[in-house]
């Protein structure tokens, strides 16, 4: 192939597809190259055991950018979104349980059984979360301004953000500014007393973090996770019918509908450069493809350190890239189940099994889980977040049988005194099943098939550096102006013709499509110049 594309997008993850679709929609000739045989990146549904389909990467949609859904007509392209309700079911250590529902009043009732005081605090807390996350939503949708520029435009962006902040009102503004840098423990301690409630909420502040809930920045991540969720519906998530791969499929259809080409089994080896400008890509097969622009949906470290000859980049810049912290801490366990788990604290196949099942008895439990990882071991008692999508979608498992996907934390990428070999992998799988069986004793026997993906597997399968599901930790120092690296937070790269559009860019990870959306906007903005 010798004809030049307007843009080559590396990686058919959901952000790459969003960017590709928008560029194609704007009339560009777009080519998307995917290393694997199937598209989706970490938003993928695979049949790993006959008859059982699993979301092997991400298991739920955080929240899709509304503009993406509308602009790309995802519903028309087959995306059907199912809200989980209850949002969370958290079994407690002493036979109690907690249910969070989409309706705040229902949640308050459940909390009230554990602590009337906490139930009374619920509306106030959810209102604060809503205010803070609305502010963060504005931030997420804004391309980080060039703060050091003296240009009117950048000043304007900053003033607008300051204006948004002020619009919260004096009191809330100070409150939001105060809580953003806090630890999620501090935040929750100010509101609640029940360990199970605090643990279950706090878990949203540690996802993908090589930090425990006692670390600053976890309050921010907690609030960030609630961007765009319905007020009062904390830790709510969405599912796509047919598995999360349904989202990727819809995005791909939208992109192809606008004329984009998507090639799978097309492994990009490097980005070709001439005269300080990206000119296309070279595949592992030896094929070279020319493109006026190259847009990388893979993480910044892979993009800059693996796909580019370092000679094209400044040492200081490369230092910053190498300093991005990945430190993956998540593993995934996918179970094919012969029967539903039966929880001792809430027996039977009730609606509670439809939400996220969160093993998070207390903040201390989460912190201790992290302590192990800090010294290079996986948690003796890990935090678990499980879903059983086959309950709401019978296309995923044979009748009467079920699939369960579990996000496990903490399983550090760097193991002390060892590597993630088969023995370690299965030890982790056993640990997870044991832990969950403590709450649902029938689970162990119900397992028909088990797939364990360690951080090393996540790296190998999905190309996530160090297995970090967010393309770089979502700590305060790696956000906004500093994502992916300080000074290059605006989707552009220090190499003409190269852009980034993945979760490693602002506003970061999660299944949102926002980085891809923002990147497309910036690319088209430059093209108009």
């Amino acid at each position, binding site marked *: 192939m010798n004809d030049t594309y307007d843009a080559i997008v590396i990686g058919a993850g959901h952000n790459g597809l969003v960017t590709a679709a928008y560029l194609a929609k704007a009339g560009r000739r777009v080519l998307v190259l995917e290393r694997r045989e199937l598209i989706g990146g970490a938003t993928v549904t695979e049949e790993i055991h006959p008859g059982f389909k699993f979301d092997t990467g991400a298991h739920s949609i955080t929240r899709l950018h509304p503009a993406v859904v509308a602009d790309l007509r995802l519903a028309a392209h087959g995306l059907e979104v199912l809200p989980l309700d209850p949002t969370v079911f958290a079994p407690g250590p002493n036979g109690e349980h907690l249910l969070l529902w989409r309706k705040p009043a229902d949640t308050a009732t459940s909390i009230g059984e554990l602590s009337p005081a906490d139930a009374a605090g619920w509306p106030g807390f959810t209102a604060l979360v809503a205010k803070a996350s609305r502010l963060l939503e504005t931030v997420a949708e804004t391309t980080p301004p060039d*703060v*050091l520029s*003296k240009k009117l435009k950048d000043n304007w962006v900053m003033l607008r953000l300051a204006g948004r902040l*002020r619009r919260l009102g*004096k*009191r809330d*503004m*100070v409150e939001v*500014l*105060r*809580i*953003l*840098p*806090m630890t999620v423990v*501090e935040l929750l301690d*100010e509101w609640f007393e029940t360990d199970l409630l605090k643990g279950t909420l706090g878990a949203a502040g540690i996802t993908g973090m090589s*930090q425990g809930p*006692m*670390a*600053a*920045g976890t309050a921010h991540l907690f609030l960030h996770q609630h961007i765009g969720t319905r007020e009062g519906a904390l830790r709510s998530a969405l599912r796509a019918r047919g598995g999360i791969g349904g989202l990727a499929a819809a995005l791909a259809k939208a992109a192809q509908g606008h004329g984009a080409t998507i090639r799978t089994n097309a492994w990009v080896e490097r980005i070709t450069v001439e005269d300080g400008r990206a000119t296309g890509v070279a595949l592992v097969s030896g094929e070279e493809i020319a493109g006026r622009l190259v847009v990388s949906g893979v993480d910044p470290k892979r993009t800059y350190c693996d796909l580019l000859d370092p000679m094209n980049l400044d040492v*200081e810049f490369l*230092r910053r890239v190498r*300093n991005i*912290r990945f430190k993956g801490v998540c593993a995934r366990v996918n179970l094919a189940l012969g029967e539903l788990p039966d929880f001792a604290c809430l027996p039977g196949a009730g609606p509670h099994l439809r939400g996220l099942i969160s093993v998070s008895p207390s903040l*201390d439990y989460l*912190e*201790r889980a992290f*302590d192990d990882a*800090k*010294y290079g071991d996986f948690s003796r008692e890990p935090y678990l977040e499980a879903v059983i999508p086959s309950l709401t979608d019978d296309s995923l498992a044979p009748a009467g049988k079920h699939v369960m996907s579990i996000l496990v934390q903490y399983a550090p990428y760097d193991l002390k005194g060892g590597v993630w070999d088969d023995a370690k992998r299965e030890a982790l799988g056993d640990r997870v099943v044991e832990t969950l069986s403590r709450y649902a004793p029938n689970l162990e026997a119900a397992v028909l098939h088990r797939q364990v993906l360690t951080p090393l597997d996540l790296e190998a399968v999905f190309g996530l550096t160090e297995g970090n599901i967010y393309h770089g930790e979502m*700590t*305060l*120092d790696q956000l906004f*102006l*500093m994502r992916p690296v*300080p*000074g290059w937070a605006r989707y552009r790269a220090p190499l003409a013709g190269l852009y980034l559009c993945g979760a490693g860019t602002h506003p970061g990870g999660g299944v949102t499509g926002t980085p891809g959306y923002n990147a497309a906007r910036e690319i088209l903005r430059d093209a108009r110049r």
Partner: protein
Amino acid sequence: MGAEKRYDAVIIGGGHNGLVTAAYLARAGKRVVVLEQRPRVGGSAVTEEIYPGFKFSSLSYVVSLLRPEIIRELELPRHGLELLPLESTLTPLPNGDHLVRWADHDLTRRELYRHSPKDAEAYDDFGKLMYHLAFAMKPILGIVPPDPTSLSPKDLRSLLKLSKHYRGLPAEQFYALCKLMTMSAADYLDEWFETEPLKATMSASGIIGTFLGVRSPGTAYVLLHHYMGEIDGVFRAWGFAKGGTGAVSEAIAAAARERGAEIRTETVVERVIVKSGRAVGVALDGGDEIYARVVVSGVDPKLSFLKLVDSKDLPSDFVDAIRRYKIRGSSGKVNLALSELPNLTCRPGVGPHLRGAISISPSIEYMERAYDDAKYGSFSRHPYMDIIIPSMIDPGMAPPGQHVMSIFCQYAPFELKGGWDDTQREAFGDAVVDTLTEFAPNLKRAILHRHVVTPWEMQEEYGLTQGNIFHGELSLHQLFFNRPAHPWADYRTPIKRYYQCGSGTHPGGGITGASGRLAALNILKDW
């Protein structure tokens, strides 16, 4: 003493900040009285002869960043202040090796080179960047925090000025500052260095007085403090006051007295007298009352607002904010009278290294494990320690040939599981001595007397709520316009003519005197 003469200002607490405020007010011609509950002034900056012939700087033991303008303006050297430099920082390692950083650049470089050639180079690059950043941070430390919610021209101007200042920085510095403000000390140092004891020892400065570990975000910016002195013309400012830390307080007190301030010790303030929303004086525990035009509290915010005044006199959201204000103590102090010098396995004998600090911080993991104990309510079995031997710098601190050793140790949580009592205190003392004996085997038998101060004693004896040495944790959400609570970060309080001047106000922390000075200047502005 009776309800007698009227004062312009009554200052609650004769700690170093209270004394600084008193001295500045007296200098402006105000009639000032300082009320100190203990028998001597100084608060936490005090030196006491707890064991005959041995002078212990019971709590605060080094003079880190005493503002040079205070030294100049109050003419402290004339009042007896002499600061002696610390020579070095030595980190002994369990494998018998060690790492020393000397005042001399070449020596330090060679020593670092021994551990890692790359680190030896990175250390210079790091130093240069920190020097720049300290310079860039300076404007923040020297101003009254503006209220970001206010639309008053004064606050807006101040905000705009700050924003202009920071956006005028070179990109490298701007982003390094952003990182320092948000990162953990250990993570930030990981970006520069590979030598464990170097990272651990440098990162230790980020956790002193906080309830955080070296891997907790928000601990990195304290790394700057070590470079702050250099830009203020007090090169090698980390030092030791001749005669002990108490000598700093004595010098400030002498400066205040010379200008006519009155200092009363063993005078306990029961409450602040508030009449129709205005502070008019204080009531003492004996029933006496002292009236003054303004009342200034040098004690911590919890005491200032939850104990000394009736919460009825304060807006409820302010009371809530002060209740939420985090003031968890996390450190203890062990003072030893020694019959002989410790003999370090890693560097035997007497040498210049004993004139500097000794830091028990062999690795990041060591530091984190110390923190882990504290997270769940125990004191560290193997604590981080910052040790100096004052008698090596100032022979007057101990009888000839004998020595005093000052050990700052972390972590010792105020909220100890089961609570602090004599047994727990001595168990903590044992943990400290045992750990140190691993590095200096002769230590245990050289001890003539041991004085252990846990956060409980700090609260009960020295009036530091929960034993927090900084009057409130120096975490991001308790700094600048949130110190101690928005919108009362300008040394004023919701009660008219009631001011605060302690470490619980901006910029807080350490023996800097900055809070006391800024408070005094603002009080005078309101006069």
